[in-house]
């Protein structure tokens, strides 16, 4: 693989790394504040989003995560939903 292709591959991953950073910030600093609330799914939405950003392209992962969070309210039954 040429140098350009290699570097392009890393540059393409930058948005995903930023998203993963935001998810990490949420999991460490924001989520613990909400002791009373818990995700209705397994794995939790933040974990699901993290796995999505590791597995899929940025836009697919973003769409899947938004879709998942919008379903995460008490109107839905708790269920196992893997990325």
């Amino acid at each position, binding site marked *: 693989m040429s140098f350009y292709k290699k570097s392009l591959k890393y540059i393409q991953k930058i948005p995903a790394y930023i998203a993963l950073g935001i998810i990490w910030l949420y999991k460490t600093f924001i989520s613990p504040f909400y002791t009373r609330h818990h995700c*209705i799914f397994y794995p939790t939405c933040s974990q699901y989003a993290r796995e999505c950003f590791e597995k899929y392209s940025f836009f697919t992962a973003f769409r899947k995560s938004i879709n998942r969070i919008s379903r995460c309210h008490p109107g839905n039954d708790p269920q196992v939903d893997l990325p």
Partner: protein
Amino acid sequence: MITLWNIIIYQPIYNALIFIAQHVTGKDVGLAVIVLTIVIRLILFPLSKKSIVGQYKMKALEPKLQALKNKGLSKEEEAQATFALYKEYKINPFSGCLYIIIQLPILLALSLCFTHGVSQPTHLYHFLSTDGLKSTFLGVVNITKPFFWFALLAGITQAIQAFLAPQPIPAGSSNDTNMQTQLAKSLSVQTKYILPVIIVIIASRLASAVSIYWAMANIFSILQELYLRKTVRSKLA
């Protein structure tokens, strides 16, 4: 992106605040924050009500959940079995992530409202005006500046709320005794005590309007908790 944020979230909240301050609370922006908090929480009430009722009902299920945990299933299987049990008894103890995600931008927008000052003509809708608004809460505290005692109040109410709440048992938290789960458990206990302190530290650096919002939201949660506890107990008994 910034215009989108302004139009969808920031401006509605800012203008709602100004509207309430102008028409409801005698031009006191501090009181308007309290009213706005109560309005937001009342809108979100149906979302949290169902889960709180579910958490009380779950007490009856506890032995069965404990038995499931001792079976030594994998995390995924355990979650599946737990959820099947919930479905069978028609309870849902979780409020979900949407509840949190909705509140975060509101808190952020509210704190930005006060760091930018009460008068922001570019964001104001044309039928409102900021004339004569008082940014001193009850004529004593300047709500655009940090104020320690409100921050302390926010921390204390958070602590009370944390102790009142029965902890929901998250799915997939096995009962094994390896080091990592023990560590996670001790951390979750720590957050109960340390979080209020962190809140006091953060809130004492932000505009005191944010502390008012925080404290008010916590007080609302406490009252909601006590009210639902009473109604659910009388229903279950």
